[in-house]
């Protein structure tokens, strides 16, 4: 079983993604979840659950924020609501939320997702013993490490197969602070980037929200050419993140992965098909953004 998980930015897009045959919609709001393409109200979450469940699809709600006291108080009620809405599972990154989930015996499965921190099977299993039904792996892992983790983990692990990768999360409003210093007006933060000194071609996306400042790698991830390797490694949770690929373009990208998944399951995978689908992904990817495979092809010893 391979589970294709895709973010949704609107109810309409959620419908299109379900029509495209994704397995799970990934949604939520910034109060509890990190770096989502849109904030959904409880009413909207209910509606999406409705739409998804009618087609026997799942809904996962992001609760992977770093939670401060003011928000930990809201968690029990939010969990109640999610249960009532029939959400299939949540992602959690803060052990305080796990503590509450277990304490109140809320019957919602959770996947552990602390952004950068899951880098070994032993750690995945620590959370599995505390009820986690899966874990989102750090984006800084190489294929060799992914194989080993997947082999030794007691629960399924998730990797990002398409989309932007966050590489820095500060609680400070770093863009606002800079603009305050330079007396610039804070402009439309949707299209802001930074480039490294002496590397003018690099373009790391940066934006602020109520959780602070988020910076993304210069390349977005595209593992379409490597999906066979994921299947071989037994990695069954594949996420597609549309935070920077909006609207219909994202739906089109998702369709290529759906087709790839089906072909791999049907043993219909070929070089030709791979190339064709990969070209489509490139075609629908925002033209100003670049794609890469992140740490996937690196040697574990390349990173000191």
């Amino acid at each position, binding site marked *: 079983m391979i589970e294709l998980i895709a973010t949704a930015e609107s109810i309409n897009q959620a419908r299109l993604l379900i029509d495209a045959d994704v397995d799970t919609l990934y949604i939520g709001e910034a109060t509890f979840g990190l770096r989502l393409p849109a904030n959904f109200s409880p009413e909207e979450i209910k509606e999406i659950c409705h739409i998804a469940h009618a087609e026997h699809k799942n809904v996962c709600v992001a609760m992977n924020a770093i939670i401060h*006291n003011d928000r930990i108080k809201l968690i029990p009620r939010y969990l109640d609501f999610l249960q009532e809405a029939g959400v299939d599972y949540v992602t959690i990154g803060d052990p305080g939320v796990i503590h509450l989930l277990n304490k109140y015996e809320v019957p919602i499965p959770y996947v552990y997702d602390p952004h950068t921190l899951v*880098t070994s099977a032993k750690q995945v299993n620590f959370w599995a013993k505390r009820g986690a039904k899966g874990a989102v792996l750090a984006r800084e892992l190489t294929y060799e490490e992914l194989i080993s983790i997947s082999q030794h983990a007691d629960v399924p692990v998730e990797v990002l197969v398409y989309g932007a990768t966050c590489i820095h999360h500060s609680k400070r409003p770093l863009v606002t602070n800079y603009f305050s210093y330079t007396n610039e007006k804070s402009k439309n933060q949707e299209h802001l980037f930074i480039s490294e000194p002496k590397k003018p071609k690099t373009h790391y996306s940066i934006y602020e929200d109520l959780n602070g400042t988020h910076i993304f790698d210069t390349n977005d991830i595209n593992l379409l050419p490597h999906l066979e390797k994921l299947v071989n490694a037994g990695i069954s949770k594949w996420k597609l993140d549309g935070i920077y690929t909006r609207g219909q373009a994202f739906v089109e990208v998702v369709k290529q992965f759906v087709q790839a998944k089906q072909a791999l399951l049907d043993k219909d995978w070929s070089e030709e098909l791979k190339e064709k689908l990969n070209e489509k992904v490139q075609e629908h990817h925002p033209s100003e953004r670049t794609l890469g495979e992140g740490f996937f092809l690196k040697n574990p010893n390349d990173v000191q």
Partner: protein
Amino acid sequence: MKKWKQKPEVLAPAGTLEKLKTAIHYGADAVYIGGNAYGLRSRAGNFTYEEMQEGVTFAKEHGAHVYVAANMVAHEGDLQGAGDFFRTIRDIGVHAVIVSDPALIEICLMEAPGLPIHLSTQSSATNYETLNFWKEEGLERVVLAREVSMDEIKEIRNHTDVEIEAFIHGAMCISYSGRCTLSNHMSARDANRGGCSQSCRWKYDLFEMDHNGMRQSFAVNETDEPFSMSAVDMSMIHHIPDFIENGVDSLKIEGRMKSIHYVSTVANVYSEAVNAYCKDLANFTFQQSWEDELWKVAQRELSTGFYYGTPKEQQQLFGKRRKIPVYKFIGQVLDYNDSSQIATVQQRNSFAIGDEVEFYGPGFTHVYQKITQMWNEEGKPIERAAHPMMKVRIQMEAPVKPLDMMRKAR
């Protein structure tokens, strides 16, 4: 009414055995050191087991504690031997290990029972339920994230009885700790395994880009300030009572890579302030000399981080850096002869007749004087103490003690 429950410990960094002894001598109640594996400062100042043993023995003689930082986030293969490591340091008598990776926590709990565990700030603990979670797992203490405010500390204290440790001084990550992999991506160095290359402090170009790839930079002229994410340092010397009244158990000073000059000065100041408050809180007043002393070892501007609000641009390093008066560590007192009023000093940086120098010792003692007469080891008068580690005799105007430090303004 002002109140406090218990005196908190002042916890100082110790990159080497010498720094460990210095920190304790200068009033630190506890020190944290790096083991030879699993630490985040993999390149600097890690102790061998023999050094650890010596450090623990020294600390015990002085009623102080030694903690070992093993706060890396392990990858596949890194965990082999971790059980042995924890057992060995437990048997050496280390008082606690500072860990963030749950895999290492589990190994430590299973394989080295009896070794207390502190959750590292790398785990960014920001709410009381997180502290309760770790308490139930068997941890003794949680180091709070630097993003927690003083009001939040108060609330956390009211909802949990696990020990709380908070940062009071030193350099800061501008990200939530553990949540920054800039170095992994930009310099192929793993920030969560001790490889951070401080990429946040670089100068970046901030620009808008449209769908055609057209870019518009915000800094266009040579003189325009480039974008960067460099935090100024923290100093909470003005707010020690807040920590004590809110029940913080341990006050942590950052800087395992810093010098003995830094460690001795900072430990001295904070233990003085804590002692002053706990001895007589009714009459406690802030001493400007404490802050002045901290500036002598400061490298950047000082701030209060997130304790009293979200840091604005003033808490980041933009523009021209203000000139901070730099003091140089020039020697350490080895011996003092009361009758002749002559101090024997080991030189650590050159100084000469006529220099205005400052001696400082534990308990915040200071002697300021001009050097008028000095002799070398053979008793010959000298003008300048030029050789590293040479022994110099100095005519003193007031008594000093062995292990007192000597500094001068550059």
